[in-house]
């Protein structure tokens, strides 16, 4: 039977079929194990459906079956590129229930390591974003070189490079080793120049601009509707950064700017937001090193030697705010009965943790609010009517990390 020639068909007689393509879970550019079911019309994406859950590890359930002490060590794995933030969210939620006031020095330490972690996460993102756009060789390696330095520092203080287990309920795990602050300070001094170098390669490159400008525009309203957070949201013109709008820890004492783009953000804006955020994080770290009560670990150690065991509660060298932990943790760590929610601004967005505790040594219920999950949800809308090559540019620019999506 001859199909009726409609006006539309007559206009384009050559009709092509849509092609169904399965991108992932094993694909070099899906950043882990994401599966995208794509309907392509030639090179145009007509429909996209992300399939998540390949990395599900029951992280919430584990919280209900491990003691608090054990669970702290596990949650770095929720978002393995920014383990500090998951620990921090859990710690803050538990401290809220417990009504604990964390010593000031510990708060500063938390901010320092967290901002370092933000830098490592953004640096890794920058490298992989370069790969996504096809800058195969040069760009990925320079950010990784800096990331390596930061990870070495984090390793020296926390013991491991990604599974830190450093921020604990009530403080942080330990003091920085000798020379650590000096190394970090030196790094922060040279880091802005390094960022400028990445920018020299990418930011104004005509090919890069063509690939990113006006690609994957995320309107403000759509972003809010989907619960997108983090730099992805700020690039779309919503100034939501928990560090600014609801300052926690010592962020209200620090001077930093939050880059917000005042239009509907495209891939380039999201890129720029993260680049500026790296500068800001670097600034935060420098300020923290200068402001930290008691000075750097080396200075403090010297002072403490002088007044060892003075026993006073608020001795300027060893008491009060200079501790790094309210009360030393042990295996029998308990959180008071109650429920609480706390969120931190992770590199990917608002990372929240909701806890119900019955006062036993395990949680009754733990629920995570992961930024990647909401950010990924908006992907199908962004991809519509874009080319195959744009999939990777857009997907890279919203900086999703799959274990964070699947937990």
């Amino acid at each position, binding site marked *: 039977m001859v199909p009726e020639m409609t006006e539309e068909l007559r206009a384009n007689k050559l009709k092509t079929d849509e092609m169904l393509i399965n991108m992932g879970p094993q694909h070099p550019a899906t950043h882990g194990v994401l599966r995208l079911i794509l309907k392509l019309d030639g090179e145009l994406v007509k429909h996209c459906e992300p399939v998540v859950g390949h990395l599900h590890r029951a992280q919430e359930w584990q919280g209900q079956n491990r003691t608090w002490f054990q669970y702290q060590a596990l949650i770095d794995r929720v978002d393995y590129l920014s383990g500090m933030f998951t620990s921090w969210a859990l710690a803050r939620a538990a401290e809220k229930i417990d009504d604990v006031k964390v010593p000031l020095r510990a708060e500063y330490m938390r901010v320092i390591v967290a901002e370092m972690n933000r830098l490592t996460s953004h640096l890794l993102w920058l490298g992989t974003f370069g790969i996504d756009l096809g800058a195969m060789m040069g760009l990925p390696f320079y950010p990784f070189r800096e990331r390596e330095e930061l990870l070495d520092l984090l390793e020296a203080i926390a013991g491991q490079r990604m599974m830190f287990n450093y921020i604990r309920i009530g403080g942080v795990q330990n003091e920085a080793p000798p020379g650590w602050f000096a190394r970090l300070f030196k790094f922060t001094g040279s880091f802005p120049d390094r960022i400028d170098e990445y920018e020299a390669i990418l930011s104004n490159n005509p*090919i890069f601009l063509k*690939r990113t400008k006006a690609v994957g525009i995320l309107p403000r309203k759509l972003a809010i509707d989907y619960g997108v957070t983090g730099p992805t949201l700020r690039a779309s013109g919503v100034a939501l950064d928990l560090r600014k709008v609801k300052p926690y820890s010592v962020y209200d004492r620090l001077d930093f700017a939050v880059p917000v783009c005042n239009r509907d953000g495209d891939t380039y804006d999201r890129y720029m937001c993260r680049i500026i955020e790296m500068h800001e994080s670097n600034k935060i770290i420098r300020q923290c090193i200068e402001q930290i009560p008691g000075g750097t670990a080396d200075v403090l150690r010297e002072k403490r030697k002088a007044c060892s065991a003075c026993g006073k509660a608020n001795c300027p060298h060893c008491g009060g705010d200079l501790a790094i932990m309210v009360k030393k943790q042990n295996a029998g760590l308990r959180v008071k009965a109650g429920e609480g929610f706390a969120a931190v601004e992770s590199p990917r967005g608002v990372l929240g943790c909701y806890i119900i505790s019955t006062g036993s040594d395990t949680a009754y219920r733990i629920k995570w609010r992961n930024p990647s999950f909401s950010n990924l949800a908006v992907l199908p809308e962004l991809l519509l009517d874009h080319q195959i090559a744009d999939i990777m540019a857009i997907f890279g620019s919203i900086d999703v990390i799959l274990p964070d999506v699947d937990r």
Partner: protein
Amino acid sequence: MNSAVFEIGKFARLTLLWLCIIFGAVWGVSWSIGVLLPAVILSQSGESGRFWAQLLQALVPVVAVALFVPLNTCYMVLAERRLLALFTVRKGPNRVGPDGAFQTVADALKLLLKEEITPRGADLLMYTLAPVIFFAPSIIGVMPLLAAVSGNHPLFTPVNLPTGVFYILAVSSIPVVGVVMGGWASNNKYSLVGALRSAAQAISYEIPLLLSIITVCLLAGTLDFVQIADNQRGSLLNWNILGGGALTHLGIGSPWWSIAAALLLAACCILLFALYVICACAEVNRTPFDLPEAESELVSGFNTEYSGIKFAIFFLAEYTNLFIVSTFAAVMFLGGGHAPFPGLEDACISGLRGLLAAWFGACTPFQLGWLVNSLVNPATVSQVFWIIVKSYALVWFASLIRATLPRLRIDQLMDYSWKRLVPLALILLIAVTFLKELV
């Protein structure tokens, strides 16, 4: 700082080693079957052996290319990896052999021994034929270049064609057939998309490439490689990239319009060269035009499903093509085998001659002296040396580009070609035609 210098030194050492291997082998084999064996045959059997001697001599170009291509690819892959390592503050492969010199040999062996997998539903005949079709043109295509590369050495003169440029351009459009065949036959959607991209890309970039080459031919007034190279004898100013001698004709008394035309011509030719480099990058699928195999989008594009020896052939062909376009550019634009400064070439030749005389002078009365002289022809050595330097400089530049630039999108790629490069090429063609008359 020191360690970086150390790495560069290692790279230089490795390059020397490999160039000795490649050119020593090619040179030695060509000489033995082109000069030594015929001489022996002729002296043994006189006139009756003339046929065999000539047959052997005729075989020289084929054998030389067949030997050169795999060896050169081994070096180029290694050099590219080491160069990328240098650019990206790494060390690169340095385990197999001295400084990792034989890493690519080991890789090649591994690829040859690997299992070959044919995907289910693949069209076996096309699937097998694709790498061959992709690779064959590189061997066939390189032939006419040989004469220009060797400074019209008598052994290689027969392969020189009066229309060598056209021959190469014709041959170089064949590989895309192989790519499309491979992509289609693989029964994989990524491969198919990659292959179609490749076809579209090859068609659009062939045009500006051709136009830029035609313009150079117009400038040189010939299609013969040897002549094109010879026209650029003298110095940098005679190279086609600076207008093919337009600047050297100027004197104090030249009229102003002649000077202006010459300068404009030089500028046009630099643009032509840039045009050629861009299009050549696209032709051989190098970044930023490596869409057919865009790793982050299409896994590996048209060769996703290939493994083992078939993949090795694809790989071999890709690097050979890169080398061919570099040599092509060296001959067409960068003065072929001629030194950049006047006198340098003569200095090279006479220096070499002096060296030979010093070393082998004692042997001259004997047969050995003749053999050595036929083995090392100072003029040829100098030509080959300069062309190697120029070709590998371009390969180096391609690596630098690969380390820096992101990839274009397919529609932008098309836009760029049809809306920017083709008009530019046409303008340049007309401009050069007129300016050439004015100078």
